[in-house]
């Protein structure tokens, strides 16, 4: 068999995601519009703010959701949203690393650099829960797929990624958790030039923050089961996300 011919045949079948070009062009147009009208917008915004006296808050922010010794917070335009106290996940880290074997994160040069990061993938929530002791919100009511758990033992924290299927929509979540001994000053999610769209309360006074990132992607930050989640919902609506958060809140 000839590699070149076989590889070409495979590659020819790979097409870009349908609608990607129009999405990219829309994104470009939005950026173009923002660029052309930037100064006009500054004056307009200043006038608008004067008129309404700051009644409406749409902040251009560098948002950074992080675990600062003991608490999860989301920095947003100089203010902070509190997501509550962090409790370590009762994870058997040594056992997890042993099972992970050689699954260490590497990069472009195939080099792993300290602090070393180990990962495992799981076919089901039950498998993941059995190995890590990590609990995901409403696992009996929503479907979790494609679950990956990553840990940086040196820093006593890690990430869990999964897809949530609920009410006809799917969401990708990236959750940050800590293990016993966590004492990092700052460990978190970064968003440059993000825009806070809505600060939202659900359940029994629980906080969530809807953010539009620099590329116009919709994300929401919230904390459940001692995990700080960043969830993208490009395939769902804010209304659907609120329904999901409501489900999480009602479960308390």
């Amino acid at each position, binding site marked *: *068999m000839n590699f070149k011919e*076989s590889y070409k045949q495979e590659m020819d079948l*790979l*097409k870009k995601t349908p609608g990607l*070009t129009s999405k990219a062009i829309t994104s470009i147009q939005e950026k173009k519009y923002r660029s052309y009208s930037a*100064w006009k917008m500054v004056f307009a915004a200043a006038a608008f703010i004067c008129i309404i006296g700051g009644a409406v808050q749409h902040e251009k922010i560098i948002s950074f959701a992080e675990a600062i010794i003991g608490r999860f917070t989301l920095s947003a335009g100089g203010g902070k949203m509190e997501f509550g106290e962090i409790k370590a996940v009762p994870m058997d880290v040594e056992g997890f690393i042993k099972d992970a074997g050689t699954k260490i994160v590497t990069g472009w040069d195939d080099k792993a650099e300290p602090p070393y*990061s180990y990962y495992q993938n799981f076919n089901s929530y039950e498998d993941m829960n059995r190995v890590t002791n990590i609990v995901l919100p409403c696992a009996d009511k929503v479907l979790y797929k494609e679950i990956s758990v990553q840990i940086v033992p040196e820093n006593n924290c890690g990430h869990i990624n999964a897809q949530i299927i609920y009410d006809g929509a799917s969401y990708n979540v990236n959750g940050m958790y800590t293990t016993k001994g966590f004492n990092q000053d700052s460990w978190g999610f970064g968003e440059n030039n993000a825009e806070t769209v809505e600060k939202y309360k659900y359940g029994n006074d629980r906080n969530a923050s809807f953010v539009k990132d620099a590329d116009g992607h919709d994300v929401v930050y919230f904390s459940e089961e001692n995990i700080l989640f960043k969830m993208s919902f490009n395939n769902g609506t804010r209304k659907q996300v609120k329904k999901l958060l409501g489900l999480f809140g009602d479960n308390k």
Partner: protein
Amino acid sequence: MYIYNYAEDGTEEGGETYIYSHAEIENILEKYGDTIYRAAYIQLKSRDKADDIYQEVCIKLLRLKQKIEGEEHLKAWLLRATIDCCKDYWKSVWYRKVTVDNQMVTEQIEEGGEQEAGYLTECMQQLPGKYSAVLHLFYYEEYSIKEIAEILNTKENTVASRLSRGRDKLKKILGKGGNNYEF
């Protein structure tokens, strides 16, 4: 072949004039969209990430300071921008500290998740980015070592070395699956 530079920081200033019109960008993306997408997918092993890289490249195209003359030059520039975006992704703090990593995604694909790529694509994706980039440009895009060196902005010797080592690594991966391909 001369590869045009693009504005690295891409700062947007009020009143900036973009060199390509909407229709021109649409035409370029229609023509080379799959080329960009394939190069990104081979590197990042994930459709979502390839989608993101595609958009990044589109923005870089928008911010070009001068039009690129000649179809071959344009294609080469798009490939260079794509691979640079992939490298930036690998180096990013987001990747190292936060995001689901490339290997995790690959493993999921192997474990029966959504996967539309063929066997050889999967094998290529197991290689470190610096090897898969060179192999993809050589075997799929059919660039010479000299041309790849210009696209990647590196020395021809480096490309030749990566091509050789990458091929050896790929042969081992293919061998594990009991497949012997002629290169």
